[in-house]
C-alpha cells in the first residue's frame, strides 16, 4: 500500500503543483463572489461571466479580433480595466435598482444577467474554442521554470501563483488599511448604520464590484493562458467551482475564499487524477452541497441572519 503511494509520488507532486495553480485561480474568482456577498448579500451569478470576458478580451486584443492588436502587457491591463468597469456597470444597471426589492428578485436578475452575458459572448465570438496566438504572448511563459525529476513547474504556473499571492496581499491591504476598505467592512456589518455615518453606500458597492470583477478578469486571463483555450461557457463551470470555494471558506470571508479556492483546486486535480476524471466537476457540486447542508457558515464564515 505504501509502496504504491511512493511509486506515485512524482505524479503526486506534479498534481500538487497543478492543484495549487488551479486553486489560486479559483481563489481569485471566489474573492469576487465573497466580496459582493459580504457587502450586499447577493450571490452574483454573473461573476463567472466577467471572468470569461477577461479571457475573451485579452484574447481579442492580442489576436487582433477587434481589428487591432496590442502588446501583451497593455492588452492585459486594458482587459482587467474593462472587466472592472463591466462589474460596476453590472451593478448599476442590474442590481442597484433592486436594492430594496426582495432578495429573490436580485438573485433571479443575477441569473438573467449571467445568461445574457454568456450568450452575448456566444454571439460575438462564436461557440468554438479559441486559442491565444503563440507569437503574442511572451515565450518565456511556456518554458519550465523548475524541473525536479518528472515534476515540471512552468514559468506560467509561477506567474499565476505569484500574481495570485500579490493580488491577495494587495486586497488584504485595501480592505484593512484604506478608507474604502473600512467602508466596505462597515457596510457588511450594517448597511443602514454605515449610510447614517456618512458612507456613500452606492459608491462603495461600485468599488467592491470593480475590485471583485478586476480580480475575476485577471483570473480569466490567467486561465486562458494556462489552458490556452477560451470559450463562452468557461465562466459557467469556473464560476460554479469558485462559488463552491467561496461557500467552503464561508461566504463573505476573504481569507475563507482563498483557503476554499486552494482546497477545491487540489480536490479537483486529485479527484480528477485518482478517482474519476468525468466526475471532476461533480466534486465541486458535492463539496458545495455538503458544506451548505452541514456547515452553512463554511470554514471562516460568520453566522448569517437568523430565521427568527
Amino acid at each position, binding site marked *: 500500500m505504501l509502496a504504491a503511494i511512493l511509486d506515485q509520488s512524482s505524479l503526486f507532486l506534479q498534481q500538487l503543483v497543478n492543484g495549487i495553480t488551479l486553486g489560486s485561480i479559483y481563489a481569485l474568482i471566489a474573492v469576487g463572489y465573497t466580496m459582493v456577498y459580504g457587502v450586499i448579500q447577493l450571490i452574483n451569478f454573473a461573476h463567472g461571466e466577467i471572468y470569461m470576458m477577461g479571457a475573451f478580451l485579452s484574447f481579442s486584443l492580442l489576436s487582433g479580433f477587434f481589428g487591432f492588436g496590442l502588446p501583451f502587457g497593455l492588452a492585459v491591463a486594458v482587459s482587467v480595466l474593462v472587466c472592472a468597469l463591466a462589474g460596476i456597470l453590472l451593478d448599476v444597471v442590474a442590481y442597484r435598482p433592486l436594492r430594496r426589492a426582495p432578495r*429573490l428578485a436580485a438573485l*433571479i*436578475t443575477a441569473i*438573467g444577467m449571467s445568461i445574457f452575458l*454568456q450568450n452575448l459572448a*456566444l454571439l460575438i465570438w462564436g461557440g468554438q474554442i479559441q486559442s491565444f496566438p503563440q507569437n503574442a504572448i511572451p515565450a518565456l511563459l511556456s518554458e519550465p521554470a523548475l524541473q525536479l525529476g518528472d515534476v515540471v513547474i512552468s514559468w506560467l504556473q509561477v506567474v499565476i501563483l505569484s500574481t495570485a499571492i500579490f493580488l491577495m496581499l494587495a486586497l488584504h491591504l485595501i480592505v484593512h488599511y484604506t478608507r474604502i476598505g473600512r467602508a466596505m467592512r462597515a457596510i457588511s456589518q450594517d448597511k443602514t448604520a454605515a449610510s447614517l455615518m456618512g458612507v456613500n453606500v452606492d459608491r462603495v458597492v461600485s468599488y467592491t464590484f470593480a475590485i471583485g470583477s478586476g480580480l475575476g478578469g485577471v483570473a480569466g486571463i490567467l486561465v486562458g493562458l494556462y489552458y490556452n483555450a477560451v470559450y463562452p461557457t468557461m465562466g459557467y463551470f469556473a464560476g460554479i467551482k469558485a462559488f463552491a470555494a467561496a461557500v467552503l471558506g464561508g461566504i463573505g470571508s476573504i481569507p475563507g475564499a482563498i483557503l476554499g479556492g486552494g482546497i477545491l483546486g487540489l480536490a479537483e486535480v486529485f479527484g480528477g487524477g485518482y478517482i474519476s476524471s468525468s*466526475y471532476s466537476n461533480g466534486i465541486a*457540486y458535492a463539496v458545495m452541497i455538503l458544506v451548505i447542508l452541514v456547515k*452553512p457558515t463554511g470554514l471562516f464564515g460568520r453566522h448569517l441572519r437568523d*430565521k427568527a
Partner: protein
Amino acid sequence: MHLDDRLFTDKKLYLPLLAAVLVLPWLPMGIAGPYVLRVATLTLVYMVLALGLNVVPGFTGLLDLGYVGFFGLGAYTAGLLTVHYQWSLWLVLPLAALNGAFWGILRGAPTLRLSDDYFAIVTFGFSELIILVIRNELWLTRGPMGVPGIAQPDIFGKVLDQPWQAFYLILFFLFLVLWVVVKIRSSRLGRAWFAVREDEIAAECVGVNVASYKIIAFALSAAIGALAGAFYARWFRFIHPDMFKFWESILILCLIVFGGMGSITGALLGALILIPLTELLRIVLPAELSNARYLLFGLIIVFMMRWRPAGLLPVEKE
C-alpha cells in the same frame, strides 16, 4: 377576481376553452403542417413544467434553480423502463412521477432550515449532479450516446403514433396537472404554502407544520416535472443528457417569472408566449448561433424583475 380563481369554477370559461382546445391545433395544420403541431405539443409540455415549477418558487417562495433535474429524471426513468421492459405508458408514467417525488423529498429534506439563497444553490448543485450521473453512468443510461428508440405512447394496447394523438395526450396531462394545482391553490394546503412563503414564524404560530408542507410542495413539484419528462421521453423517442442542461431550468424559471410567480394562468401564459418564440428563434438564427436565443431569456428575466416583478398576470391585487 383573478383569473386563477376562475379556473374550474367559472362556467363562463368552459366553452371558449373547450372550443380553443378542439379547434386551435387544427387551424395552422393546413399552413405549416405537422411542425406547428409539434411546437404546440412542446408548448404543452413546458406548460406542465411551468405549473410544476411554480409550486415551489411561486407557492412556497423558495427559488428552485434545478428543476430540469426532475425533468431529466422522469425522462430517463420512463425511457429506460420502456426500452428495457417495454412497459405501457400508463405504468411508466406513474413510476416516473413517483421516482421524481422520491428524489424531490430526498433533495428537500435536508434543506428545510436553509435560507432562500442557499436553497437555490443546493437545488442547482443537485440537478447538476443528477445530470452528471446520467452522463457518466454508461451501464445505466448509456451516457452521451443517449437512449434512442423509446416506444411511442400507447393507450389500451394501441400505439399513439399520430402527432395529434400525442398532442391530445399531453393536453390531457396538462388538464390533470392544472386541476391538481388549481384545487390545491384554493385549499388549506395551498394556503399553508402561501403562509410559509409570507412568514414562516407566523405560519408556525397558526399551526402550520412548516417542514411537512414544504416537503409536500417539493414532492408535488418534482412529481409533475418527472411526469412531463416521462411524456417527453415517450413522445420525442430519444433522450440525451444535453437536453437537460442548466439553461433549461432557467428557461422554465423564465416562463413563470414572465407570467408572474405564483400565478397559475401566468405560468401557462408564459409558456404559451415564450416556447413558440424559442422555436421561432431556432429557425431564424443560424444553426451555430441557435443557442444564443437564451440571450433573450436572460434579458426577459432582467427586465421583468426590474419593471414588472410580479409578472404579466400578477397574483396580488393591486
